[in-house]
């Protein structure tokens, strides 16, 4: 995940801010706000006067605001560096409600990968569970050999490997994404 949505929003806001500041200063510079403003000194404006006359309380307030901004930026940076969209271990609920079974995330994805890679015509497979552990989504990528029967392989993966994964989780409606890629690479399978 790496906070991709936040990154995009922040970049759009930053872009808009740069445009706004640039246009405002540019407009003052070419005289769009009148010749008086154009030829007045940079600090000789209502904002400059306000800052000058209220510095006693304004700068401490600015420092507190800066502290909040720094903490938010630090949180953003940590999310960028360490966040992941992978689910944790999955809790399988029994129909009786008694007992508790936990399925390791890697156990399921390894089984799916192993099964798909065993199909003739598949040269590689990757799988991961993303989202909330209570409501995960299975994302599988399978690399098909260029000589394979793509439609037959797609159906086999869907009806066998992915259906087995759903059965293992006891959730036949498990949201599943299958990405198929085709390459000239041959599977290193012993036949």
């Amino acid at each position, binding site marked *: 995940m*790496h906070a*991709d949505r936040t990154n*995009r929003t*922040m*970049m*759009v806001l*930053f*872009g808009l801010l*740069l*445009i706004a*500041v*640039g*246009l405002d*200063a*540019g407009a*003052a*510079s*070419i*005289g769009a706000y009148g010749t008086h403003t*154009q*030829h*007045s*000194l*940079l*600090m000789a404006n209502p904002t400059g006067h306000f800052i000058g006359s209220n510095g006693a309380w304004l*700068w401490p307030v*600015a*420092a507190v605001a*800066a*502290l909040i*901004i*720094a903490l938010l*930026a*630090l949180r953003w*940076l940590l999310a*960028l*560096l360490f966040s992941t969209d992978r689910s944790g271990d999955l809790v399988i609920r029994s129909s009786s409600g008694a007992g508790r079974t936990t399925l390791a995330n890697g156990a399921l994805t390894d089984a799916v990968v192993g099964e798909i890679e065993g199909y003739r015509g598949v040269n590689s497979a990757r799988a991961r569970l993303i989202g909330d552990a209570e409501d995960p989504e299975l994302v599988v*990528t399978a*690399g*098909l050999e*260029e000589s394979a029967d*793509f*439609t037959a392989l*797609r*159906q*086999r993966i*869907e*009806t066998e490997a*992915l259906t087995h994964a*759903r059965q293992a989780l006891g959730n036949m409606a*498990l*949201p*599943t*994404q*299958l*990405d*198929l*890629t*085709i*390459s000239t690479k041959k599977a290193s399978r012993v036949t």
Partner: protein
Amino acid sequence: MRLINRVLAALLSLALIAVSLLLIIEVIVDRASHRTAIVNWHTAYHWAQRNSWAAGSIRVTSGILVLIGLLLLIAELKRPRVSRFAADPAGAGADGIDTAYTRRGLGAAIRSAVTAVDGVRSAAVKVKRRKVKIAAIASAQDRAAARSLRDPIAEAARERLTALKLRRSPSVLVRVAPRSR
């Protein structure tokens, strides 16, 4: 774009942290001892007291800011390149599975079909949202022979697209050039 965004976001967050800390330190040191700590902001303050909005440096800086802002905005709001081509759900083996071919995979599949056509030496395939552009090089040096390959190449590409059973097949555009030497 996602990767570039992550790098830009890391730089922006670091810059925000640095500037904020700098401001906090300067305010504390100024309150405590009436002097600057790291940045001599008095120089900037005096410069702003001497210069007007009409200064050339203000215009240049404004122009640069607008330019960077526009580039950033265009890059962020541009429609991203399609990365997945959905497979036809009619051919699905199970319900509720979102199956698609990757753009790179689709390109490789079409390229292998095209290069299997007799007389084609090599091919480059560009896959776009609605169009597949094939630039093939014929084995022949003769222009007419190269041109005669256009239909078989297009046919091979369409056959491959049909075999993939996509929800919506992109159209095929073929350009064939004779071998140069």
